[in-house]
């Protein structure tokens, strides 16, 4: 978001209509432009309001109400304002709190794993010694096109001994009893699926940033006797820092969406419950338990977490001297 920050001071020169002088032509232009602006901007704004703002507002309002069925369950249930009761209900439910904790643990595994892997791959492909970087790059990127559902189905087969060549090979080597879907390992098994799907995409973002570094910088550093490691540490990493921040932020937001992988893996293991993650819990409340109000409160809590984590992360990053965003 640096771009917006830097764009703002120049906006006066950059916007043609704002730069017009008092000449008649300019004022005619000024009268004409709002029409075009409306045509360009309003369709998006209408759609954004309908499919982003409205659901969020709806969820917030809905989370403050509850459905009460009348005495004998006859007649239509009535809608009652209950304030923050649904939030209290969600946050005092042991299973929902546990799912929040699980989500935090998952983020703790997934975010560093993803950033380090993507960075490692990008630096390896950028190393002078790397052969066929183009082929490797496409190979790493390919899983991005495989939907999370299908990735989870595939890894599901690779996680059970009956079909997994990896576990079969380990078994042949005498290593038995490895169960990626045990309750201790399940979070890692899920993190692996997400890593497999998105590491290549994040790697591409970092490669693009690495490519933007002028070659002269390397030349100069090499003349000064710097080796590969020092090039990485003193030139590459500081210069691609904004991109690292970007992929970290995307990964944080991505981890909070955790839903599909546990949903697909659930039939394969008892380690994954129907409210394994907050999103699964909300989905369950809305469609299986018939409590959309509680589900709305849970959804709002996840959204607040997303904003909170993003803000916290950007704050930590920006405190250390050079602003990234």
């Amino acid at each position, binding site marked *: 978001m640096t771009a917006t920050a830097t764009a703002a001071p120049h906006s006066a020169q950059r916007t043609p209509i704002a730069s017009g002088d008092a000449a008649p032509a300019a004022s005619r232009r000024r009268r004409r432009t709002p029409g075009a602006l409306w045509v360009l901007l309003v369709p998006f704004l209408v759609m954004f309001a309908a499919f982003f703002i409205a659901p969020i507002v709806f969820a917030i309002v809905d989370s403050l109400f509850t459905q009460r069925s009348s005495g004998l369950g006859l007649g239509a249930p009535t809608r009652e304002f209950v304030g923050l009761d649904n939030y209290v209900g969600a946050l005092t439910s042991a299973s929902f709190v546990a799912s929040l904790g699980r989500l935090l643990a998952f983020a703790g595994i997934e975010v560093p794993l993803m950033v380090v892997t993507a960075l490692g791959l990008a630096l390896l492909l950028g190393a002078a010694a790397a052969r066929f970087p183009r082929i490797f790059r496409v190979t790493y990127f390919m899983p991005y096109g495989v939907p999370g559902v299908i990735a989870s189905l595939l890894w599901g087969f690779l996680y059970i001994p009956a079909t997994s060549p990896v576990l079969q090979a380990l078994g042949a080597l005498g290593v038995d009893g490895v169960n990626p879907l045990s309750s201790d390992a399940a979070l890692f098994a899920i993190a692996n699926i997400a890593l*497999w799907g998105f590491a290549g995409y994040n790697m591409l973002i970092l490669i693009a940033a690495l490519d933007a570094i002028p070659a002269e910088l390397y030349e100069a550093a090499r003349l000064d006797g710097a080796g590969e490691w020092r090039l990485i540490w003193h030139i590459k990493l500081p210069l691609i820092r904004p991109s690292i921040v970007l992929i970290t932020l995307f990964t944080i937001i991505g981890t909070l969406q955790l839903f599909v992988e546990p949903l697909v893996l659930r039939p394969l293991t008892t380690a994954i419950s129907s409210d394994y993650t907050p999103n699964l819990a909300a989905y369950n409340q809305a469609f299986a338990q018939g409590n959309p109000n509680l589900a709305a409160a849970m959804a709002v809590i996840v959204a607040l977490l997303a904003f909170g984590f993003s803000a916290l992360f950007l704050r930590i990053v920006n405190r250390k001297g050079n602003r990234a965003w």
Partner: protein
Amino acid sequence: MVTSIAPAATSVDGHGRAHGPDRETSRRARRSAASSVAVNGLLVLAAIYFLLPIAWVLIAATKSPGDLYSTFGLWFSDSPQAWENLVDLFTQDGGAFSLWIVNSVVYSGVGAAVATVLSVAAGYAFAKYDFPAKEAVFWTILGGVLVPATVIALPLYFLLNTVGLTGTYWSVLLPCMVSPFGVYLARIHANASVPDEVIEAARIDGAGDLRIFGGIATRMMTPAIVTVFLFQFVTIWNNYLLPLVMLNDPKRFPITLGLTLWNSQTQRDPAFTTLVVTGSAVSVVLLVVLMVSLQRFWRADLTAGATKG
């Protein structure tokens, strides 16, 4: 044309690889030979990791249900039956799978096309016009990038339910037509690649604002437009929660939802496992072909353009 617009982003392969001075000592040469082995060894290991599930599913799709469980996962069985599996896949449930492919293509293609038009127009408007509360509106839209999709989908179901849209194609298509990230990308690239002088000159020649946008600016923004389209296409293609929440008629399912429908029936009838495996293989092949052939249009540097400010 693509490269002339954003010169900073051309050398995707170059890696700014600088050639060191010729006077390298033999010690250094030996060390670099060792590091070359290490680097390429790691690259191969990573490639094996990324290819493993894909290789597994392509091989598994040639096996009979029995062989799937009784033969080594990464090698073919003695009695391959790829053709039989494919025929089963495309005839099961009255050809449901082909319908799901068509649905996925429609959702992704139409959704991404409209999303691209809307967000590129809006991004251009943000870049080139001044209007009240512009930055506040823009930051609100950017906030949309931070909201997890799962948080939108549930309330959206109840909202669309009140207007009777749930269960229709529209319930999946309409929400997919909004791409806040696309607006963000389009704004940055309108700023970077459409000079104000060009707009001024076109105005002096008597062109209207919409004509300038449609005829001139969009051409200069082509790489960004392609990126927004591809990004949204893959996002919709990979989407699961939204169709899961909205649709109940398997005739309108995309591939992802269809395959999980079959997957949920494997307990009842193990034959469905082969269908799921073969269906996954086909959809992986479809997408891998798409990704690899579009790779040269897929400009991650534009996705990352944000950070070049």
